[in-house]
């Protein structure tokens, strides 16, 4: 028994001193639990609201349109009301707004007339337009349901009010009037990708593959960090630095090797995407590949920086796995960003992944020009440069 206890104590002591084990056993599950907890709390309705954000252009400004907006609110949508249409479509199609619904002039009177008519003539359906950001289509069907539901509710309630006003005794039938057939028929025109006549609708591959590619490219940081630590531990790094080469040359050589591997990795993932997920290629391919190239650069910078903090391969693996998984989840590479709570959505932009994905989405899903994606790309590049600068500084100091 004494021996067993001695072994137990020794193992606990070793475990306590093994930082990577601590990260894997406690850190990783805790971060995941927190992250998923916040996401599910949001999406499962515990807080009562879906992360649906919609901008409503109220051209009607009538009590009925306000009722419609109130109903959207009641259905858990975060509504922002505007009264001017300037650049609204462009804002949605460039990702500045998630979704926009236009309540046209005459929206209220159209419903009002329908509600007042006792013997409805042949009804032409009410036509509404809903714009959805092409890069944020995960909740598209939910959004459509919510808009349709709100519209039905608005018209049905108005109809019921009118009936009750005319025939108070009919109050008992109002429950039935809330049902669909008693509502004003409506057609919702959903525009979820730009210029539908010119561009085909994005495929699932278009929506999912860029995130996966960026995520796996950034996983290269782990490899960079591990090889650097390995070289430090075996003494080959010291030997290289004792030769007439500068730290910069050593790092540049390593980066080049990783870039070559990254290019191979991207080619493989793109091929998989094309053949299995119908990834669209007739887009600004050069621009998208440039984004991936910048990701490789930034990933290697991240790897080098991590390597200057860790001492052992185990530590490095622990640190990078944790950091990269969290970044992948937070950025929208692995989990649709539009499902994130607003605070976490803001937080996602601290990751280079999020900016890179935004740049690809601009070109691939929103069909914007390279110039439009350039600001996001520049941020990824600057992050990469900053990571390199700090890594190089720390590397020289060490």
């Amino acid at each position, binding site marked *: 028994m004494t021996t067993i206890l001695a072994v137990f104590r020794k193992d606990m002591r070793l475990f306590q001193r093994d930082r990577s084990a601590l990260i894997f056993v406690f850190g990783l599950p805790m971060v995941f639990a927190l992250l998923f907890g916040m996401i599910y709390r949001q999406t499962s309705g515990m807080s009562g609201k879906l992360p649906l954000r919609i901008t409503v252009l109220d051209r009607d400004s009538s009590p009925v349109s306000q009722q419609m907006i109130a109903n959207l609110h009641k259905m858990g949508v975060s509504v922002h009301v505007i009264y001017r249409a300037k650049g609204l479509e462009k804002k949605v199609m460039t990702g500045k707004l998630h979704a926009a619904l236009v309540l046209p002039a005459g929206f209220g009177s159209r419903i009002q007339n329908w509600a007042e008519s006792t013997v409805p003539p042949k009804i032409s359906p009410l036509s509404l337009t809903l714009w959805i950001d092409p890069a944020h289509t995960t909740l598209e069907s939910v959004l459509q349901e919510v808009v349709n539901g709100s519209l039905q509710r608005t018209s049905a309630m108005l109809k019921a009010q009118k009936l009750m006003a005319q025939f108070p005794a009919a109050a008992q039938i109002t429950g039935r009037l809330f049902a669909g057939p008693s509502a004003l028929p409506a057609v919702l025109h959903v525009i979820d990708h730009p210029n539908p006549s010119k561009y085909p609708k994005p495929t699932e591959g278009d929506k999912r593959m860029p995130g996966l590619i960026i995520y796996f490219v950034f996983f290269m940081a782990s490899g960079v960090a591990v090889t650097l630590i390995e070289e430090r531990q*075996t*003494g*080959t790094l*010291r*030997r*290289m*630095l*004792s*030769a*007439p*080469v500068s730290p910069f040359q050593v790092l540049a050589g390593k980066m080049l090797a990783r870039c070559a591997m990254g290019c191979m990795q991207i080619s493989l993932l793109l091929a998989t995407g094309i053949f299995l997920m119908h990834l669209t290629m007739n887009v600004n391919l050069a621009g998208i590949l440039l984004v991936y190239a910048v990701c490789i650069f930034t990933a290697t910078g991240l790897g080098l920086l991590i390597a200057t903090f860790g001492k052992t391969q185990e530590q490095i693996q622990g640190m990078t796995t944790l950091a990269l998984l969290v970044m992948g989840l937070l950025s929208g590479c692995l989990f649709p960003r539009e499902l994130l709570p607003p605070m976490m959505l803001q937080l996602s932009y601290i990751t280079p992944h999020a900016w890179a994905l935004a740049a690809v989405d601009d070109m691939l899903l929103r069909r914007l020009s390279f110039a439009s994606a350039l600001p996001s790309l520049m941020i990824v590049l600057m992050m990469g440069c900053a990571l390199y600068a700090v890594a190089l500084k720390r590397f020289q100091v060490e």
Partner: protein
Amino acid sequence: MSASHLLQVNGLQYTYGERFAVYNLSFEIYEGEIFGLLGPNGAGKTTTISMIGGLLKPDKGDIELAGRPFHGTPQEKRLLGIVPQDLAVYPKLTGKENLAFFGELYGLSGAVQRQRTDEMLALVGLRERAGDLAEQYSGGMKRRLNLAAGLMHKPRLLLLDEPTVGVDPQSRNHIFEGVRSLNKQGLTVLYTSHYMEEVEMLCDRVGIMDGGKLIACDTVEALIARQGIPVIELGVEAAPVTSHLLEALAALEFTEGVTCEPPNAQQAGVSSISVRSSRPDRSLPGIVAALNQHQASLISLSIHRPSLEDVFLALTGKSLRD
């Protein structure tokens, strides 16, 4: 040995946090010699090599290489070949690929690189295994490859940091032979070790380090002569060893002291007498005569010459391997 020095270090100092790793270290290495830095683990040998190799910037002091101040520029680094204490080779590369890579770092390419690789593989006895992955080599073979990698660019000064740690006798001999052979061709060597036998066997001059300081520096012979006196160990059978015998031995020319074990032997039996003599060869006839005169039979005799271990002990009060 040439009188001109290839390397000179003056007042070198380096601290890790609050602790001095090297303190006010000064010595010079002459062109064509093998200079040993001897000291226990933690004496500051590797830190010294790192500073000379341009890997660490000294906190104080300066280094002069080939008559010029050393700042660790690429040109200066080409004069140096460093063989680190670690097995700094790539396990997943073959011996040949390892050497080719380290040669490339020094600008070797093409036929020159291939020729140099072959020469180095032959020098360290790895030609037969040149195409094998380094991970398949024995510890000693890896050490030899480690040495060859530091020699690829024909340095003028080779810095060998404990190159024989954990190697088998065959590989150790290979390394020694290689170093001697290169030294004969004019290569200057700085050899650090905590094995005093190696330093004694290989080096022309030795610097002894302890606690980051150089506590002695001279030729091996001079250091031993300065600090140590040979001891003649006598196994004597007498009935018993008398004080007269010990007095007679003490009175001999060149005798510096006499001790007996057990002391004050009163009974017949074998005793061990140690005679410290500055010239054992000259003392021996007198010792034998004294033993005969006092009817003591000599049953064993050995001469223990002092080593660098004794010098270290005398200088620091502790053993080299403590």
